[in-house]
């Protein structure tokens, strides 16, 4: 065991640099979006840019505190930390709703959103639990416990309701996938029930077949289609909701699969093939319905918020007002953008894109910096994510690795959904762009998430595997 190195010497400076540059770009964008000619000073605390800089300062201070604490404390006190954020999530349900959701704890603008911090607590407890397991001893019980750790905060967040954060919590599924804590026993059992196909030992079988990917794929398709209707040219009165499109597609897919199996398999296996087909259809159908229902149930408050900002607007963009405005802003950026502080669609002054300083901050950034800027941003985020995965993989302790993966996947979700909202790749669910969007809670929670990771990484060599 080597001696503990100095705190700064073992810091991952690449990650720090990526984190800092995103934060600086974020503040610059907020300064542009919310610029008020009467308060030109960027440090003016009455303005959103001044506040954001204050939040950056507060986050730095919290980061400093994190570095003072021995990293082992998170592992030791994982359960108390988790329980305290859970209790915050319970308390927040008794707060008066703001914009239709009981998400804020505190007074006025100085409130915090416990849901943001719930991610940290969940990540820590999940890391604690998964690291305590012997990988060779996976059981139904361990899968259930791991899922319970996720489901409790998710259920509480659903009650607020906060669709965005709820969806983000599913990012932990990827972490569990990385640790082998997934449903692959079920999948493999199903797959291997097909005679002649033995996926168990192959790379494809163990890494790609896991049901997680079926779940993710189906969920994404369902989310994207759940707000659409399908129309038929020959039957103009018949309008189907998007979910039925998903179901019909699934049915066709499973039917074709079954017919192929029937053709290939010997007679005695056909009954089993039918059973597999029916169960596969029922499972994916139920999943799609759940996702659709959750989104439909959660979406109204999202829509209401938009209407609150704009009044009921008769507009060619209609229902998908936000996304169309956002896409117009992003698309009009061109190659090099309109120039700093020149956004005409998405600045707060014109307000064509609601929430352009928070959830839709990508709009003004893309409008002002064009493709040159958005390429840089995407590259920075991908670099940040890959760096975190690299850090995760070099940890000796399983706790550290699970935690690092949690950070990576949470950030990935935020990145993918937030930017995806602007380019038609993700449904419009309000979640912030990490380090970029205006807001104290998200800035603090992402920073703490990051600083704990940096602290764990800097002390990785102290830990015995």
């Amino acid at each position, binding site marked *: 065991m080597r001696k503990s190195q100095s705190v700064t010497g073992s810091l991952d400076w690449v990650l720090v640099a990526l984190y800092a540059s995103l934060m600086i770009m974020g503040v610059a964008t907020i300064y542009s979006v919310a610029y008020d000619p009467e308060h030109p000073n960027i440090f003016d605390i009455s303005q959103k840019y001044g506040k954001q800089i204050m939040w950056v300062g507060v986050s730095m201070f919290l980061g400093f505190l994190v570095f003072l604490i021995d990293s082992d404390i998170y592992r030791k006190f994982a359960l108390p930390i988790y329980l305290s954020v859970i209790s915050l999530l319970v308390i927040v349900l008794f707060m008066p709703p703001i914009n239709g959701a009981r998400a804020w704890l505190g007074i006025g603008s100085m409130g915090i959103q416990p849901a943001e911090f719930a991610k940290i607590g969940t990540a820590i407890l999940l890391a604690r639990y998964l690291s305590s397991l012997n990988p060779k001893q996976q059981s139904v019980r361990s899968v259930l416990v791991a899922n319970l750790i996720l489901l409790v905060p998710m259920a509480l967040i659903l009650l607020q309701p906060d669709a965005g954060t709820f969806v983000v919590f599913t990012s932990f599924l990827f972490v569990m996938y990385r*640790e082998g804590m997934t449903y692959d026993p079920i999948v493999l059992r199903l797959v291997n029930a097909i005679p002649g196909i033995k996926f168990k030992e192959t790379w494809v079988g163990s890494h790609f077949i896991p049901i997680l990917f079926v779940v993710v794929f189906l969920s994404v398709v369902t989310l994207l289609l759940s707000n659409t209707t399908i129309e038929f040219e020959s039957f103009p009165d018949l309008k189907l909701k998007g979910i039925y499109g998903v179901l019909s597609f699934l049915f066709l897919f499973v039917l074709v699969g079954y017919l192929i199996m029937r053709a290939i398999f010997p007679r005695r296996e056909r009954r089993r093939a039918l059973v597999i087909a029916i169960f596969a259809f029922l499972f994916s159908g139920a999943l799609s319905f759940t996702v659709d229902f959750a989104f439909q149930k959660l979406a109204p408050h999202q829509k209401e918020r938009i209407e609150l900002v704009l009044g009921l607007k008769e507009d060619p963009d209609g229902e998908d007002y936000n996304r169309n405005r956002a896409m117009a802003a992003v698309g009009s950026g061109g190659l090099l953008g309109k120039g700093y502080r020149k956004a*005409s669609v998405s600045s707060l*002054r014109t307000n064509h894109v609601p929430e352009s300083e928070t959830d839709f901050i990508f709009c003004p950034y893309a*409008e002002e910096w*064009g*493709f040159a800027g*958005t390429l840089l941003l995407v590259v920075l985020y991908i670099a940040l994510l890959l760096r975190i995965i690299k850090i995760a993989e070099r940890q000796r302790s399983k706790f550290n690795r699970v935690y690092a993966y949690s950070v990576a996947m949470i950030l990935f979700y935020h990145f993918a959904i937030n930017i995806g909202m602007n*380019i038609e*790749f993700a449904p419009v669910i309000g979640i912030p762009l990490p380090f970029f969007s205006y807001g104290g809670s998200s800035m603090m929670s992402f920073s703490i998430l990051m600083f704990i990771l940096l602290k764990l990484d800097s002390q990785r060599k102290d830990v015995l595997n």
Partner: protein
Amino acid sequence: MNFDARKYVLITFIVIIGVIYTLKLFYMQVVDDSWKLRAQQIAEKRREITPPRAVVFDRNGNKIISNKTYYNLMMVEADIENLDTAKFARLIGWTMEEVRQRFIDIREGEGYYTSPITGKTTSNYQRVRAYPFMKELTADEISHIAPHLDDYPGFFEEVSSMRNYPYSNGANILGYLSEATREEIEADNFYRPGSVIGRAGIERFYEKEFRGKKGVHYIVTSALNNTVGSFKDGKYDTAAVQADPIHLGLDVLLQGYGEELLKNKKGCIVAIEPSTGEILALVSSPNYDPNLLVGNRLIKENYPKLVQDENKPLFPRPLASEYPPGSIFKLAQALIGMQEGVITKDTGFPCTKSLVGCHNHPSAQNVTQAVKMSCNPYFYYVTRRIVQQDHFKNDWEDAEWGLNRWAKYMNSFGFGLRLETDITGLRSGRIPNSEYYDRWYGHHRWQFSTIYSIAIGQGEVTLTPLQMANLAAIMANRGWFYTPHFVKSIGEDGPLPQFREKHKTLVDPIHFPPVIEGMRAVVEEAGGTARLARTPGITICGKTGTAQNPHGKDHSIFIAFAPMDQPKIAIAVFIENAGFGGTWAAPIASLMIEKYIKGKISDPAKEERILNAQLSNFQ
């Protein structure tokens, strides 16, 4: 089982998302232009600015048309959100019912279009177009409304200007403006609903020269349709350019004086500067104050009254009414006779009175005396000689040849043709030729004895007062004229090219002096027919006319120019149903001449008599 390989799955997943997002962003931002258009639709608005129309000056630099600023409250239905009708009605001082009705009226006012192909009827009304909701608000009225317009997206104020006529004269010359019709809007991209267009007079004739160049202002608007700022700091904005000022040859004071003199009379005065063809005054009586037809509100109120007025004040008599010229026509007959060689300046004819009536006077021994005494038989003989020149044995054929020759001369005086003056509403008058009489009597069924009343400017011959004044100008110039015109210069460009072209009559200038001497004698000598026109210090050459009129008393006509040498003004005065030309028209003409040349009137009693005259035909 070793799960380490799963990191590659996750890494691939993340990288693929990054690549897909980058490609999509590249497509949206660089390749696909449709989002740029959409962004423009959303955030940028194009506002057109119509400049005020050109101002107009008279020949002495008096501003006779200026502009007053007014405001329109414009409405774009597509931008209206949650209109609180009650509150809005209170703001503009209407009832709620009126506000609702106004929306319906605007829509209905645009009419409907039925497609000839599909048979579908659609409204011409467009929700995205701006329509004037309230028009012609004064600065005071708009100042109560404008500060609250931010609460009513879809409504905005627009500055507009309306005409103002400081002198109130010359309504029939200047014309008026009214709203462009839907057809006009569709035919010319310059006009928008609520734009004005010249309706009569020079405003209509010089529409393009008056309206100027529109400016465009691109602005960035917010989601609530408020103006946030100019787009790209006004890089693409263009300024509205007012058209160059227009200078008229008109003398507005003379015009006003003429209108004063013709009060309570029906008739007209046309005064021309012979050396340039510029119209100095063109009075049509009765007339109206041009300020009565400024803006929709006033037009709506006053136009029907003017249309229904029995005295027809909107009718531009000097341009459009065709009267028999009476004896003034004899000037042209004498000139043509001499040019044709059928008479000389010393030819005399007895005053026989057997064929045409005449007043009592000694027989004219020469052209000068004939003009002075306006002898009807004399000109009967002259015209007969012109028409029947015995070139053909057959009298009918001879008359046909002679009349056409005569008509050609007359046309060279600008008679029987439209004098293409820069104004609308002109008529041509009539000089009959063989074709004309063939229609009436049949080919070779007429000769001079059939049509002799043309000799003394009666019968089929008609002239407009503008043509009569032009005859005076031709006499003043001894044989040529410029087409009479109003606009002396557009900006610094001078008159239109067609007004710089000298027209020569077919009569040689050497034939003019004896006729002009006769015109001088008409005014200056004992036995002349227009002694009332005598004006000390100015030698006026004139000719009276008294045109018979089947509908009532004779028309009183006088044309003149003065001074005799280097004439400054040529004038025609036509007073309907006023009797003998020397009684009314001649003194009026002399007053106009004196006013123009001297600037003051030497004989107040003469002026008084005219001003106080109440001629019977005036309702």
